[in-house]
């Protein structure tokens, strides 16, 4: 049969689309979810209890240092969640991955909530330490901008009658907003900020005692797994809700 020759899909696109089938996604995610959610719960509760009751108080900050066991994981997820949102947006715009749009929609509110938690716990630490709930410091301001980017994405994807147009507009906003991530990361190096420099770096030794570092790392891991579990569960619900809408629409058209 003389048809148009289609160029084979690039290997990346092929491997990505293998997991794009909603039925396959529901099957695989249903099996994986308990193995993510249960360790997330145990690590988060264990890490927070460790930080709250076992880890030592700071010689300058006193017990207020215990707020970092929430603030730092929330900050990590605020940035990490936005990066995940941007990756999903890229997958959606470039490869039209069918689950990427839904994933971006489901990541948005969770990422926004963790960014708000980061800002709120920062304020709760700042009041007793700095004497102010808020200062227009480069780190704080850039994280506030991140929070508004999340809110903008949430609003934009819901602003169109045609959901696909909303997904495209949201994806473009998410990709443009990625420029804010290095600004957040390096704000404490580029400008004189009241916010302290990074405690944990990839190249250097951590600038905190090991008795505080371990519970912090456990909390970061627990929060990250919890974020992944929540987003996966929300995505499972979104896939099923899309199937329900499709079935109801087909029923109406057939009637």
């Amino acid at each position, binding site marked *: 049969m003389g048809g148009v020759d289609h160029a084979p899909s690039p290997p990346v696109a092929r491997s990505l689309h293998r997991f794009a089938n909603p039925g396959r996604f529901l099957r695989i995610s249903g099996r994986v979810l308990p193995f993510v959610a249960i360790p997330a719960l145990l690590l988060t509760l264990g890490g927070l209890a460790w930080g709250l009751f076992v880890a030592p108080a700071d010689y300058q900050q006193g017990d*207020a240092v215990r*707020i970092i066991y929430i603030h730092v994981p*929330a900050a990590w997820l605020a940035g990490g969640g936005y990066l995940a949102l941007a990756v999903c947006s890229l997958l959606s715009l470039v490869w039209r991955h069918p689950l990427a749009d839904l994933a971006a929609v489901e990541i948005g509110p969770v990422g926004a909530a963790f960014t708000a938690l980061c800002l709120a*716990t920062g304020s709760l*630490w700042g009041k007793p330490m700095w004497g102010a709930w808020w200062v227009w410091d480069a780190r704080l301001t850039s994280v506030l901008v991140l929070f508004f980017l999340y809110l903008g994405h949430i609003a934009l994807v819901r602003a169109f009658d045609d959901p696909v147009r909303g997904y495209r507009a949201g994806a473009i906003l998410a990709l443009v907003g990625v420029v804010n991530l290095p600004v957040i990361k390096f704000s404490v190096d580029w400008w004189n900020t009241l916010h302290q420099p990074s405690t944990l770096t990839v190249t250097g030794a951590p600038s905190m005692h090991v008795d505080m570092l371990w519970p912090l790392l456990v909390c970061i891991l627990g929060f990250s797994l919890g974020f992944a579990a929540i987003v996966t*569960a929300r995505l499972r*619900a979104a896939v099923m809700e899309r199937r329900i809408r499709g079935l109801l629409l087909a029923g109406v058209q057939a009637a």
Partner: protein
Amino acid sequence: MTHLPYIAAAYGLALVVGAGFAVDAWLRVERARRRLEAIDPRRQRERDAT
């Protein structure tokens, strides 16, 4: 413990955010699963086959 109200507020907020999203996600999944069980012909066929 020093600064107790600030610490309690921070941990309380974390609990509300984490538990709130977890419970909401679980309820959404269960609601969608029940709805799909009721109207999806593929699932009805699977049920009939078993």
